């Protein structure tokens, strides 16, 4: 099943997928052993200078929304799976799981990134920011307000990733044009087709100025 899904991989896409796959198999040596064996065994000894990590569980420290988290996981665990399955931080969603749809978008050092296509172990030492940071439960980032006001979500499954992409985009382009918004957010897909609402939400949130957390309309502001 995985293989079938594999053939529709979003890639170059200009050869039929079977021939690409056949090529990969045949050309494994050219590309440096793409299809190395199945064994779990790690054959070569670890270099003295560089510690080999895994393939079994290893300690991983992730700094998420300003807090350090120590967990044990295999090196093959993606940042998305680490967040969702190991840390119960479930805002980022898994949809395509291969860097296509943007539902898993988080910020790494302030840059929007597909967390499904980054290893958690690679993200150590970096500042990871998730959708959870945009609200304290009572107050919300202006982007979230603007999403509500502009009907920018329907089923809502793409929304956390979209909101993170919008926040990161606005941090870099505080006064964007509509064209910039469209190009800047092209990494996120919405099956419900809420793009129009999202674009307007970004423009409205830009007008709200700074990127602070603010109270929802009509709600008591606990912090003021």
């Amino acid at each position, binding site marked *: 099943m995985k293989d079938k899904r594999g053939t529709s991989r979003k890639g170059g896409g200009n050869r039929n997928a079977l021939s690409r796959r056949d090529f990969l198999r045949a050309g494994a040596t050219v590309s440096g052993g793409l299809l190395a064996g*199945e064994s779990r065994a790690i054959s070569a000894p670890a270099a003295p200078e*560089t510690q080999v990590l895994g393939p079994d569980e290893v300690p991983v420290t992730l700094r998420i929304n300003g807090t350090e988290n120590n967990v044990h996981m295999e090196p093959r665990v993606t940042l998305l799976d680490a967040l969702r399955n190991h840390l119960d931080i479930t805002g980022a969603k898994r949809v395509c799981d291969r860097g296509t749809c943007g539902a898993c978008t988080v910020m790494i050092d302030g840059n929007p*990134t597909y967390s499904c296509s980054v290893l958690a172990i690679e993200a150590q030492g970096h500042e990871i920011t998730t959708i959870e940071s945009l609200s304290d439960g009572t107050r919300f980032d202006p982007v979230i307000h603007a999403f509500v006001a502009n009907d920018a979500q329907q089923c809502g499954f793409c929304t956390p990733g979209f909101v993170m992409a919008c926040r990161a985009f606005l941090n870099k382009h505080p006064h964007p044009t509509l064209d910039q918004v469209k190009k800047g957010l092209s990494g996120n897909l919405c099956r419900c087709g809420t793009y129009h609402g999202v674009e307007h939400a970004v423009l409205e949130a830009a007008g709200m100025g700074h990127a602070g957390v603010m109270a929802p309309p009509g709600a008591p502001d606990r912090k003021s």
Partner: protein
Amino acid sequence: MITEPFGYHAPKSLSEAVRLVAQFGADGKVLAGGHSLIPLMKLRLASPKHLVDIGGISDLSYIREDGDEIQIGATTTHFRIESSDLLKTKCPLLPETAGEIGDAQVRNKGTMGGSLAHSDPAGDWPAAILALDAEIQAVSARGERWIPAREFFVDLLATALKGDEILTAIRLPALPSRAGDAYLKLHHPASGFAVVGAAARLVLGENGSIERAALGITGIGPKAYRAAAVESALAGKSPTTKRLEEASAHAADGVDANSDLYASAEYRSHLARVYTRRAIEKALERAQERTDGR
């Protein structure tokens, strides 16, 4: 989707990375941005037993000017190239090309070296690198060498890199005076990759004729190529609309064009001609602006 298990190595120096890559041979793979490799591993199209992550080697990520040359480290991200002020003035074709790659998320992680090493037939960098006559540095325990771009792309997903070599840098000439560049791309509507991408560099003579033209084309065949017939049809000629049109007609000469659901071989070849003409026109316009401006 989850990859096969692997051992993860994060060397801090290039020499250490080179040693690990040689040690693991066909069992190992270099990890750069991971935006081609991780999806391939999840689909089990690649199952290395060892990943050598070169992302932590700080002196592989840089953009440097050295006289008339630009040198870029292999792990420099597409985004860093897209937003480099140095490159916007010294080699604008690079930021222009970088800005056309995927989307913001991809550009934040994907690297120039990773794209070249992967050599996707619809990747954007190969076209620009060919048009700029860049050279690609490969380092192994056996030493280092510079591979001319024209010799680098061998076949579908295959390059001149040997199994024990790490791609470490790309060097290319800065934009000369009286010259202009352009990269024009038709994005695949779903994947964003290039259905066709044409990178042009034109250098004008003192009398305004085309002294030299270089055309790199991606997306059409199994690998990116230089459109030699277009180049020779332009060299030494004055750039009339008719001549550009006639020269561009050779953009897919001798290329075994791909066919898929989105574009037949015939349509792809047509696109190659159209995008080549547009890229040349744009490069010419920019070359003329720069020439008049000084």
